[in-house]
């Protein structure tokens, strides 16, 4: 809300420069966002929090300021008018929609330009001047916070006001000249036949007050805040009135605002009141709530040492009624405009605000030992991050919401995804059921920006059914780390990714991890593998299907992807194997060169070696895979390097020859391997 300092001085006197004033207001909870010089005036732009609709007007701000600056509040005196007995015809369809409606009919009014004192005040805030009657309604809104509207009475068909919901198909041309279609969620002010205003938001053009107008009906009302807010959103139409109705106006101000406007119209436009009616169907009486609060509560919560006298003074300056409720106890009644004051803490906040938060003491809290355990997955996630960062992978953070299209393009169509009911765009339709589309999207955008080497990982949630699961996903594409000593940088491939995973498993102490070939919709045929440890499924790894990549507009490029279940990793990693004593005797290394049938996997060969090697075998390293002329067709060459070591003695040449020979024989017998 914008306020003019010059205008504000009508209600409270002060000599502070604008910056100091802005600071005082800000530190009292009325944050000044902007200070603008405007000739002999200064305009402050304030952010008023939603609990303080009473501060959306000059009198409200002046009341705050009078408390903060300890200066008297000067409110305009409104002469009490004697209204005629004649009642105007006002009907409220539902008192839930409209709690109070005061209609005042005045004639003959002389509609003309506003007097200077109103004109300059409104213009200073950037308001457009219309005519004296309309300007007075705007002036009173800013002064008192009560939105008002004036109708040209003679244009109201049947001379009647009906507050009702719009009928389906009804339309109205509003004051801004736009025709708007209405529906029953919108509250309107109608005459005997048609809507003449959108209640609380904007009047209609047909009943606008013009220079020809002689008789007016002045509306001052209370409309349901939620109804006004929804209608304003629905119609895409906001006004100074709707802004205040949405936040709630005060029942008492409905009357005070009307009285102020009527008295100004009588002075500035002449005429007299010929009819009036105050419809208050719920017979609601505006009154603040009574709250009892003790000095002990105040000082306990604030950590302060305030006195009863100090608290009483502050509250009185804010127009609270304060009486003693016993020793050290205050009985407080807030003014009716302060509908936000309901409980002791509300009163304590008022005191704290006016004392100034910066003037309250500062202490360090006592943080005791507690029952809440730290979430162990939090440090574990950091451990995983460190493992991948140490291997050159960048961590990404991506959106959890995706488009259905990106799932379809990833072969992830059939999953029980969680859908968003009200996405803003197609990119936010579903909660991601996999990290795959997120990572592929990142790799794609990097490639399209000329960055061809990508090694990324993310630890993030996926969402399936009613549940959220944390996942680890890794993706890579491009060449291996650059080394100027090497002629060519080898392309990054499946085994680079698998190696990174193996490093992780080793670091986490998972020794029995097995990869098994499997088919998967997003992997190229023949490259996918499932990963498990014992019976626990850990994840999958493979090369992304080329057709799929093409749909993502990634061409001529191999991309590799792996994902692991975070929770499964965490559970297995917490069962770390115990320390193994190492042998003090020397080990001996022997290589073994084999020709293995093409359909026999490395894993099978290794298993036979490990099983046959038994206690003497310490380690098996894979040295080479070979295909070519030196080997018979249908076979591939494998070279292993085996380390033999005993924990009991130094092995003799004979011990080793027997062990090595046994392994060779087992491979020949069980897998039809040929020694080379």
């Amino acid at each position, binding site marked *: 809300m914008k306020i003019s300092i010059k205008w504000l001085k009508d209600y409270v006197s002060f000599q502070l420069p604008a910056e100091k004033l802005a600071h005082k207001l800000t530190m009292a*909870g009325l944050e000044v966002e902007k200070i603008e010089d405007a000739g002999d005036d200064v305009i402050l732009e304030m952010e008023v929090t939603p609990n303080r609709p009473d501060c959306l007007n000059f009198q409200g701000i002046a009341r705050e300021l009078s408390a903060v600056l300890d200066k008297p509040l000067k409110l305009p005196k409104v002469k009490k008018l004697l209204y005629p007995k004649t009642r105007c015809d006002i009907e409220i369809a539902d008192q839930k929609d409209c709690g109070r409606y005061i209609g005042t009919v005045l004639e003959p009014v002389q509609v003309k330009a506003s007097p200077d004192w109103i004109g300059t005040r409104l213009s200073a805030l950037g308001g457009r001047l219309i005519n004296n009657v309309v300007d007075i309604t705007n002036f009173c809104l800013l002064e008192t916070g009560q939105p008002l509207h004036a109708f040209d009475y003679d244009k109201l068909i049947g001379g009647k006001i009906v507050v009702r919901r719009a009928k389906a198909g009804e339309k109205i041309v509003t004051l801004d000249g736009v025709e708007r279609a209405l529906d029953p969620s919108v509250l309107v002010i109608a005459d005997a036949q048609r809507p003449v205003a959108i209640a609380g938001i904007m009047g209609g053009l047909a009943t606008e007050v013009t220079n020809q107008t002689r008789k007016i009906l002045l509306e001052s009302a209370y409309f349901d805040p939620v109804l006004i807010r929804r209608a304003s959103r629905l119609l895409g139409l906001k006004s100074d009135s709707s802004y205040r109705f949405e936040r709630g106006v005060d029942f008492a101000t409905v009357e005070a605002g009307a009285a102020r406007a009527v008295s100004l119209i009588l002075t500035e436009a002449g005429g007299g009141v010929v009819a009036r009616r105050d419809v208050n169907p719920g017979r609601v009486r505006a009154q603040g709530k009574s709250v009892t609060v003790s000095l002990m509560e105040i000082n306990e919560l604030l950590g302060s040492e305030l006195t009863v006298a100090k608290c009483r003074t502050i509250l009185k300056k804010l127009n609270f009624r304060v009486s003693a409720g016993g020793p050290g106890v205050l009985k407080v009644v807030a003014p009716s405009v302060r509908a936000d004051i309901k409980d002791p803490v509300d009163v304590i906040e008022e005191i704290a605000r006016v004392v100034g938060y910066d003037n309250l003491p500062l202490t360090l809290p006592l943080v005791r030992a507690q029952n809440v355990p730290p979430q162990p997955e939090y440090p574990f996630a950091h451990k995983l991050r460190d493992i991948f960062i140490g291997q050159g992978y960048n961590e990404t953070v991506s959106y959890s919401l995706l488009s259905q299209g990106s799932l379809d393009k990833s072969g992830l169509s059939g999953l029980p995804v969680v859908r968003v009911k*009200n996405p803003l765009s197609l990119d936010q339709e579903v909660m991601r059921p996999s990290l795959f589309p997120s990572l592929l999207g990142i790799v794609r955008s990097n490639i399209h920006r000329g960055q061809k080497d990508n090694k990324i990982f993310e630890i993030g*949630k996926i969402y399936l059914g009613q549940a959220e699961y944390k996942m680890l996903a890794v993706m890579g594409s491009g060449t291996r780390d650059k080394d100027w000593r090497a002629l060519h940088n080898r392309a990054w491939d499946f085994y680079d990714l698998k190696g990174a995973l193996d490093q992780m498993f080793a670091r986490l102490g998972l020794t029995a991890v097995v990869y098994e070939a499997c088919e998967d919709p997003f992997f190229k045929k023949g490259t996918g593998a499932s990963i498990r440890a014992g019976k626990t499924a850990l994840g999958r790894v493979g090369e992304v299907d080329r057709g799929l990549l093409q749909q993502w507009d990634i061409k001529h490029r191999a991309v590799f992807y792996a994902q692991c279940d975070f929770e499964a990793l965490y559970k297995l990693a917490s069962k770390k194997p115990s320390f193994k004593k190492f042998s003090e005797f020397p080990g001996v290394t022997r290589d073994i060169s084999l020709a293995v049938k093409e359909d026999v996997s490395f894993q099978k060969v290794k298993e036979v070696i490990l099983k046959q090697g038994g206690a003497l075998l310490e380690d098996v390293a894979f040295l080479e895979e070979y295909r070519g002329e030196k080997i018979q067709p249908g076979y591939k060459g494998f070279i292993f390097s085996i380390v033999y070591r005993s924990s009991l003695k130094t092995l003799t040449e004979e011990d080793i020859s027997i062990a090595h020979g046994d392994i060779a024989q087992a491979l020949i017998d069980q897998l039809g391997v040929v020694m080379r």
Partner: protein
Amino acid sequence: MWNFDDIQQKALQEIDACRDLDEAEALRVKYLGRKGLLPEIFASLSQASPEEKPLIGKGANQLRARITEALEGIKKRVQEETFDPTQRIDVTLPGVAPVLGHKHILTQIIDDICQIFVGLGFVVQEGPEMETEFHNFSALNIPVDHPSRDAFDTFYLESKDPGNPGRHLLLRSHTSPGQICIMEKYAPPLAVVIPGKVYRPDAVDASHSFMFYQIEGLLVDEHVKFSDLKGLLTVFCKRFFGEEIIMRFRPHFFPFTEPSAEVDISCYICKGKGCSVCGRKGWLEILGCGMVNPKVFSAVNYPKGKYTGLAFGLGVERMAMLKYGIHDIRIFFENDNRFLNQF
């Protein structure tokens, strides 16, 4: 008696004839080694007559010094003669190292912030992102007709809320429901920080994102005071932004805290004078906080009047943007390598 002159002359001739380091080493062994000539000479001292002893001692020491010196000299000469200049490496060529990756800056900021509170006795907890209306709104004293519950301000899911027939689950619009999750499960004293993603249907631009990170903090015990809130957050801001930072607590409004405050720090660009980054205010708003509203305690069935608490919430992207001078929130989620590699 030894003829030291002859021995020395022969030895120096031999040394001078060396062509490489191996030959020099062989001569060292021959004369100076454990079984070499000099130990033999010294050993003969025990059999020598009293007149001979000083002569032998002196001669042997001189001989050792000359041979050692000659060997050093020849080693240097041989090295010079045999050095192949092509063996000289260009020590200015770049080193080769395995590439290290980078933690995402948001992860780093979250951890930096959480660790400050962990050091003060807080524990890190995470809550679910798919939440109920009760956790996200009602329990936090946000009324049924509050604007933030509208579909304009909160993402609702098609999934139904199993505990509230006819209502749907939603994506938490702040981390504050994490407070409720913790308090439903544990009795005070408790001190937690809850980092995580939150969601709001905001149109995406340089300063708005439909998904971002928040960190929630909650301390509940008997006798927690507003002055404690000020103290705690002052310690936090000084550790995170630096000791020289100036802060202020400004009254604000949140339904779930009372009194409520916003914390501003003096603008790091203009040092409080006012600039475009701080909107000419000289201050930067960094977090919201307050004393837990008693209505929140009653929503989690804590005994009335027994506990007080402090709570705070801050936006992680904003902290990162302030700390590193980033001006567009979208860059965090683009994951361009040139961005990731900077942190």
